[in-house]
């Protein structure tokens, strides 16, 4: 009996060393258990008094072997993992798999950034109609019918007194008619001018700002635009005002920002001047305030208007305004953050 146990022990120990997989190990364990069963079945042939001693031997043998199996299970697991690791290799330089997200249009991005800058300063957003009356687009803005400034803008007409708004300034009047000062509004939207060439699009977007309150000054306009320039461009962007003319503001100014490309030294973008024309602004014309029932002797205000496309083109380096309206997937995808 003991010889049988010794033989089985030697056999199992030998085989254990060569087991490579959990499966082989399991099969060996099955074999061991059936062999052990067979040995134990020989117990009935033993004398009654010998049985406990033998039982003890078998039990010890069994426990010892099971510990061995445990030990080898760990070894085999390690071997198996090593094989798995060796087999499962990826080329980490291969492209990843990603969910393709969409993107907002650069006009929306810039519009949202502008709203963000000015909303923090207390501006509400107002959107007026795109098809306007002659009154809101021109007359109320101090541009009566025979006014020279009407020639400045080529207007699309839909009927005698109805037109596609040429400027978001039309929204100023609608707000001032309904609301009394203090007023701080921002009016973004589509505007239209009969101009279609390499640098003009017949439809584009403006963002109009209006502040009306007591004691508003030209210095305030400059201060606010300086803040805008810093937040939209860089902290070192400078603002320059120079005289200009708009019928609805007086004094009127053209606002230049120091060139973001060269920092003011002069480059191709700024045509060597160091400055880029970005927006028009001025102190709201007294007649405009009067037209809206605001007393110009009590209140003053300023207004500014900028082209959203122009800012987007400057910010992102887009060189062709037409590209903004072609909606080419390859163009739009680049604005997906």
């Amino acid at each position, binding site marked *: 009996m003991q010889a049988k146990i010794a033989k089985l022990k030697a056999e199992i120990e030998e085989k254990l060393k060569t087991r490579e997989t959990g499966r082989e190990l399991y099969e060996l364990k099955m074999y061991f258990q059936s062999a052990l069963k067979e040995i134990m079945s020989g117990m009935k042939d033993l004398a009654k008094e010998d049985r406990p001693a033998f039982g003890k031997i078998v039990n010890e043998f069994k426990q010892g072997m099971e510990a061995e199996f445990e030990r080898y299970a760990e070894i085999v697991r390690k071997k198996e993992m090593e094989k798995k690791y060796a087999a499962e290799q990826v080329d980490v330089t291969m492209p990843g798999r990603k969910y393709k997200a*969409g993107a907002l249009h650069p006009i929306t991005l810039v519009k949202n950034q502008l709203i963000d800058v000015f909303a923090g*300063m207390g501006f509400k957003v107002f959107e007026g109609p795109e098809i306007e009356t002659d009154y809101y687009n021109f007359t109320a803005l101090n541009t009566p019918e025979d006014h020279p400034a009407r020639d400045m803008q080529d207007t699309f007409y839909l009927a005698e007194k109805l037109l596609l708004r040429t400027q978001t300034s039309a929204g100023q009047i609608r707000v001032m008619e309904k609301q009394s000062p203090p007023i701080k509004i921002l009016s973004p939207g589509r505007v239209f001018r009969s101009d*279609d060439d390499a640098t003009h699009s017949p*439809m584009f977007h403006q963002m109009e700002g209006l502040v009306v309150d007591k004691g508003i000054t030209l210095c305030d306009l400059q201060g606010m635009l300086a803040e805008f320039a810093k937040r939209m461009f860089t902290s070192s962007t400078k603002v320059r005002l*120079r005289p200009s003319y708009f*019928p609805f503001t007086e004094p009127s100014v053209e606002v230049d920002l120091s060139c973001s490309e060269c920092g003011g030294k002069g480059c191709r973008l700024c045509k060597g001047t160091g400055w880029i024309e970005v927006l028009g602004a001025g102190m709201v014309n007294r007649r405009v305030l009067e037209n809206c029932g605001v007393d110009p002797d009590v209140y003053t205000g300023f207004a500014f208007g900028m082209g959203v496309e122009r800012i987007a083109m400057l910010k992102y380096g887009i060189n062709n305004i037409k590209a903004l*309206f072609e909606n080419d997937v390859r163009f739009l995808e680049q604005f997906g953050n």
Partner: protein
Amino acid sequence: MKAPFSWLKDYVDIDVTAEELAEKLFSCGFEVEEIVYLGEKISRVVVGEVKALTPHPDSDHMQVCVVDCGEEYGREIQIVTGAPNVYVGMKTPVALDNSTVCETNPAMLEKNPDGVKKIKKGKLRGVESFGMLCSGEELGINDDFYAGAEVNGLLDLGKETVVGEDIKKVVGLDDWIFDISVTANRPDCQCIVGIAREVAAVLGKPFKAPDYSYTEQETKEAEIEVEVLAPELCPRYMGHYVENAIGGETPAWMRKRLALSGIRSISPIVDITNFVLLEMGQPMHAFDADELGGRKIVVRRANNGEKIVTLDEKEFSLTENNLVICDGEKPVALAGIMGGLNSEIKPTTKNVYFEAAKFARDSVRKTARALGQSSDSSFRFEKGVDAYTTAYGMARALHLIEELGCGRVTAMKCDVCAVSLEPRKMTASIAKINALLGITVPNAAIEDILTRLEFKPVIDGDILTVEVPGYRDDIDGYPDLAEEIIRMYGYDRLTPTFLEKASVTGGGLTDEQKRENLLKDVLKEQGFLEAYNYSFYSPKDFDLMKLPEDAQERNAITVLNPISEELSVMRTFLCPSMLQNAVRNIRRGNDEGREFELANAYFACELPLKEQPTEKRRLVLGVWGAKCDFFDIKGAVEALAETFHIKLTFVKGGKAFLHPGISANVLLGEKAVGYLGELDPAIALSLGLDKKVYLAELFMDEIYGEADTAVHFTNLPKFPAMERDLALIADEKLTCAEVEEVLLRSSKYVTKARLFDVYRGGQIPEGKKSMAFTLTFTPPADAEKAFTPEVLDGFVKKILGNLKFKLGIELR
């Protein structure tokens, strides 16, 4: 406005360079868009005197010259020339070795658009030549610019010129032309004198006014009577009779000024009218007085159908909206635009009737547009001419008549003026001016600036009194004075402040605006790119989209003056724009894409348009590619419905431009809120598209009305939801929505029923289909235990019973 530097110097002692002057003008509101140096192409060309001439040994037309170019460049320079007019003692421009002149050979000009020709020493048929003798053309000048410049051959300079002198100084090419952008409020600066006044003000130098003096002499001729019947269109009309006019040559100085402005000399009288327009900004006209019938001038509206032939021999049929100048019988000029052929100045003209007038800008503009006829004069009137300058224009013209000796200024004249010429006095509070600016400009500076601008200011305490110059119709109130002050004082002296006195206001977006941002974010998450299209498209798009003749969408507002037919109707729906986006992308090789646009469509209450139309918010989606199908675009619509917490239903049907089998109307309750589907393959075929395109359009105003963007949170159930898959045999005609509805209604614990497979054929009988659903059973939040399999079996049993009873569906 183009102003030659040399001309401005007539009125102001300018002691700064052209660049410095441009900078100064820029700072006070006159942007100089370009400074052109006239001598840009010419370098190292000097006056030389031909000292000796010998025939070229190898040529029968060339000659070898010895040229004296002065101490600096050489006393004996050998140059070969082929010019026939060369002679010993001639003074002529010499292009030295390594010089540049204007290219005159048309073939070379084509290759070299700069138009600069380089001159280097070289051999001409074996004889060395150290430069070139030049013609006027090679200097880029004509007879008007410099007398004799158009002679065929060398430019024969006067004897008084000095050898070695820079030719640019000699012929007047050492000059700059400023191209100045003048804002619409300053028509007074559309002339040399106007710009010169600004130059004087900004440099702080005196303005030297042109000479307006002349002497009137008696005339024996009968009076010409002037009558203005339409003063609203002609606020001022001045006439002056000049007799004994003589032709001949206009003096060089005036011809050169005209040449600098691109105007050719015609005759002294005509040149004076052009000169006064440039110099004073006052358009002038000269009639041949002997051609005026009835010794009369009548300024009136034309009779309907009345005809006139203008100087350029074009005939126009007029209406009562056109202002004409008539003699006793007939129209002799189209007021402010062009004179009539019947009274034009001819070389034989003896007596001249000069006209200087202010015609209403709007009238001139409308007539010029309506007739398609314009001139330098009409351009000027359209910008606005002031009645004050009219008299100065006339006086200047009469002075020039005397100066040029080309006529006798008589005392026969008229001045019909319907407007006040009294100087306008204005008072303003200095405190208010400073309050508008935000800084305190010292009184002395205010006084100085306004004096320089000829406002004659008087300051008494806070009260500023000015006399507005007659040419400044734009000055209207104290803010205008504030602007005059700050533009001269300097915008760089403002100190930025941040709304020091303003009230605090709450800012930001309205709920509607926030909702639009949310919508865009959801679509971005769904992989859509945002598009922006024009608000107008072509009426042909309606045909392309196969819209029936009576389709609502055809009731579009049209642009009266479109750029082209392609951009002539306002959008009534956005699908055509999105289709164009897809087509453009596919043609460019962008085989797959998802785009959306959120924009307005425009709806007229009646057509033709009478009142402001309604603008409605529309969302259009476009999906194209080889792998996509109807459910890609539907999924995006469903994602929006989930965000807005609305229940949309999809009913088969749709629009004429969609595939009849693969399209649906979108309903919110009973209301139609949009449609979606595959682009009709017939349209795809006509566009040559090899990819499928799916379109959806949603009426956002309707959807926003029901939208709820709040977050609705439910606490999680203690026990997990359980799923069961059911494969059902259903009639082919049954829709997913019909089965889904029964599934959801059969048990309150079914929180989701999702179709995951449809199968036909195999063991499935003809006319039937297998539909596999995953049902989700969610225990209530307060349930005490999870659903056991037995409980679920009970639910399923009940569901199957309902399916069989209501829809005849069997378990597979």
